[in-house]
């Protein structure tokens, strides 16, 4: 019944859809971590972004405004995080996790306040449907699956390339990486550590919010409490998996998404395999691949450390 080539194509096509929000959130987090700040609030921020995007999107009947709202919400959380962790010198893990809980609670709070404990039924929201380019669709096999994705996915691919350039070929990228490796030294050569970190965390938050908006507007067209289902944490894993570089993060997100998709497809055609086994596959294989294929990934040396301007060594 199953043609293996077709099966693979279908799995990959669905895998791309699974990978998209992970990729978006990871691209944001990569910048935050490169500047030395671990942003653990992604999961909550994604939920907040999903809620805001859905609410605004349906109220204005404009999905782009919805996405913008999601990004703004995420940006605010990122801003709170960097303020607490950098300006107030608090421990990043605590601020990140507290904001994760806060943002998640806020998403439920907002959602219920607006819909009055009901649901998103009756709330119409225009969605990001897959773009159907007739010429591309004609391509046998690849057309209807891999090349039949929504506009945000195409934007994400472009974003990967842009961000790879920004991270490794621009001055800002250089400054950011310097801050992440040795903020004291960076400060000494005149780089404003605070500005860099603020920008990176706000970007990270905005992208997490965007990923949330993707989930509610592009993936499913609804908001459901807990719909992020742990994907924010997976995004953090993918950042490390991708050694903090956008192109490798893309690879990581795709690998995870494809394995996840494969598990679900295999489950249907081979129900005799214990389903729990298939569901743990993405996690187990990701660990395995990390171990086998990746070299010792170098954390940005300043990750987790509180940077105090007055403590830096001068000269």
């Amino acid at each position: 019944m199953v043609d293996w080539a077709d099966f693979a194509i279908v799995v990959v096509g669905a895998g791309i859809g699974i990978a998209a929000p992970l990729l978006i959130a990871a691209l944001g987090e990569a910048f935050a971590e490169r500047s030395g700040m671990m942003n653990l609030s992604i999961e909550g921020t994604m939920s907040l972004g999903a809620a805001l995007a859905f609410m605004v999107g349906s109220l204005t009947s404009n999905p782009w405004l919805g996405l913008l709202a999601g990004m703004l919400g995420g940006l605010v959380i990122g801003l709170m995080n960097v303020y607490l962790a950098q300006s107030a010198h608090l421990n990043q893990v605590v601020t990140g996790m507290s904001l994760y809980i806060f943002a998640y609670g806020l998403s439920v709070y907002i959602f219920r306040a607006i819909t009055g404990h009901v649901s998103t039924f009756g709330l119409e929201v225009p969605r990001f449907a897959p773009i159907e380019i007739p010429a591309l669709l004609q391509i046998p096999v690849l057309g209807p699956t891999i090349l039949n994705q929504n506009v945000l996915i195409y934007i994400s691919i472009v974003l990967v390339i842009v961000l790879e350039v920004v991270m490794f070929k621009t001055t800002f990228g250089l400054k950011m990486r310097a801050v992440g490796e040795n903020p004291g030294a960076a400060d000494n050569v005149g780089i404003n550590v605070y500005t860099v970190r603020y920008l990176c965390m706000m970007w990270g938050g905005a992208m997490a919010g965007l990923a949330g908006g993707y989930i509610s507007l592009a993936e499913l067209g609804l908001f459901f409490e807990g719909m992020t289902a742990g994907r924010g944490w997976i995004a953090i894993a993918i950042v490390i998996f991708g050694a903090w570089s956008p192109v490798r993060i893309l690879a990581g997100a795709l690998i995870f998404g494809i394995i996840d998709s494969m598990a679900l497809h295999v489950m249907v055609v081979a129900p005799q395999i214990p389903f729990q086994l298939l569901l743990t596959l993405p996690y187990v294989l990701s660990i395995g691949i990390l171990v086998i294929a990746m070299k010792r990934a170098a954390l940005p040396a300043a990750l987790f450390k509180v940077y105090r301007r007055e403590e830096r060594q001068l000269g």
Partner: protein
Amino acid sequence: MQSVAIVVIIIIAALAVGGWYMMQAPAPTGAKKMALVMPGSITDHGWDQEPYEGLMRAKADFGLEVSYTEEVMVTGTPADYDRIIRDYVSKGFGFVICHDFLCKDSVTAVAKDNPSVWFAYDGARFDPAIPNLIPYIPWGHEPSYMAGVFAAMMSKTGVVGTYDGLPIHIEVACVEAFEMGAKSVNPNIQVLKNYIGVWHDPKKGHDLTVSMVDAGADIVYGVGDGINIGGIQGAKEKGIWFIGGTGDQRPVEPGTVIVSVTWGLNPIIYTLAKLYSEGRLSGTAYEFTMHTYIDGKQVGPEFLEWTDANAGKVPQSVKDAVAKTRADIMSGALVVPLITKAPGT
């Protein structure tokens, strides 16, 4: 520093006094108090939302004072049920319903300690029965069988699908009955059956439904709440019919969810509330099926048929088959087997 400390201490003292004052039990209003404890969110379109809505209807219709606690399994663990139920008892509630299979030991312990309070929990009867504890179970096998008949007749590819969260009894009953119903129409039909381990992740439901369509299914029956919401979206994207489960999910996407199996949790809780408000609760163990009647009305699982808007899309032969199946089930000519263990376990 010292003066600030004194101010703080005064504030705390004031709050303590005010708090003690507020904590004095309010004068009893005489209204009967009923509580509902739920594992998930009241916005989940299924297991928790249905009873919640039944509770709210009962509040409006019978003048009960109600309270609910939700997301026990989201913010805590099954160990919390004990504390929550006792809390309600100490607040003077006369009827506490715990809507989760996992709270049996907690409810049983509290029921034994408080014989004058009514308790209900979601589970099967047990011996010896406890006089003030009402177990209830919604068995959805009969409407699921009808759903299977419907699906098999509507399917043009000869492949139908069904999925659920975990293979525990009420879920297995629905999934297996669906398969039996489908095979009664077409013994060669292929029924895809899967469990995805969770009930509240819409994306997983969506992806699984799409996978089933990729494997050839053209109608899918979801037995869950959050996973159904996503599954419905997946069905809509792929242009196939979806059969709702747990509750009436036809309003979610009227153009996609053509029929729905409901476990009737809304009327079940409503009816229990009604009995409580009229003082007619007894320690019966309820096993709700399509044959359960309370006060002359059928309460419990149902097969909700196509709406008028969709009636034109259902061939007359299918309508007839469904009607005949229903008649046979209700008359007893057809007894749908109740399977509670997944085959092979």
